[in-house]
């Protein structure tokens, strides 16, 4: 399951670098595309603005198949306060831009499962695939607009995989 999660994150991160190279953030002294796995970073009192944060929530397993099929729910959260140049009055437009980026990041809805615990990463035998995004409502908190997107990620548990 962890390989599927890692593959999903790194696939989205690679696509983001292509879709919008300007969406970068500096986290733990590294400048990188503006997407992170929440449970692999230090806890933050406030979300990082203009970046995508992945949280893994639901988990189900289908045991009736020759290989176990796991379904994991990934919640992608993002917030924006607009740009300084427009004094934040463009936060609606900035959120819309991030909504569109999510659509582009998620398509195509599959990727080759990789094992990133090995260096270099090793391709595995199956694919990771995921559902179309379910967009939650935009939430306003003072000058900040946020949205949460839910994606169900599917992967077969391979022999000997953790």
């Amino acid at each position, binding site marked *: 399951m962890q390989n599927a999660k890692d593959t999903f994150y790194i696939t989205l991160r690679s696509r983001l670098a292509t879709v919008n190279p300007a969406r970068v953030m500096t986290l733990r002294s590294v400048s990188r595309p503006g997407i992170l796995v929440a449970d692999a970073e230090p806890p933050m*009192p406030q979300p990082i603005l203009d970046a995508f944060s992945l949280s893994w929530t639901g988990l189900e397993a289908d045991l009736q198949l020759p290989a176990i099929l796991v379904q994991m729910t990934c919640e992608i959260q993002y917030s924006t306060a607009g740009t300084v140049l427009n004094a934040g009055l463009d936060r609606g437009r900035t959120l819309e831009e991030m909504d569109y980026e999510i659509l582009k990041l998620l398509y195509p809805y599959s990727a080759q499962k990789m094992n990133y615990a090995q260096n270099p990463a090793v391709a595995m035998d199956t694919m990771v695939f995921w559902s179309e995004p379910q967009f939650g409502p935009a939430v306003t908190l003072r000058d900040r607009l946020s949205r949460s997107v839910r994606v169900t990620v599917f992967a077969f548990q391979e022999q000997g995989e953790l």
Partner: protein
Amino acid sequence: MADLSTQNPTGLAQRVATALLRAGGGATACLQMPPLAGDASNAGQIGLDAPGFLSLPLAPAVFRKARVAMQDGQLPKYELLISADAVAAQVTQLNLSSAQTLFSMAAGIAVAGKLFLIEAVSTSESQGQAYLYRLQLQEACGEWPI
């Protein structure tokens, strides 16, 4: 209307705050900072590599419990008062733009061998210059080696 009266900062407030903090406990708090050369690898972003946080000492400081836990499962909160001189020295050493940047980069703060998460930072100023930083902390659940 702007206040155009002459005010010459003498650093008095900073020295008084430092002396009071030293007299009131004089504890040392260590910010857990990411290494200057971060881990840009895939493993560093998916929780495989140890982050290698650096311990950045700040002293003198006073550490105290701010509020008792009122609800089941709620962790107690603490306050840390830090001398602005100590913070300014580290900001200069790390070539950072502000103290806020320093605190926002930190993954936590260790006091007496225990790790705390920074929830909020406030500043007390005199003549436009900070003399005291007040950090609101929450006890971390994990027992990290510090």
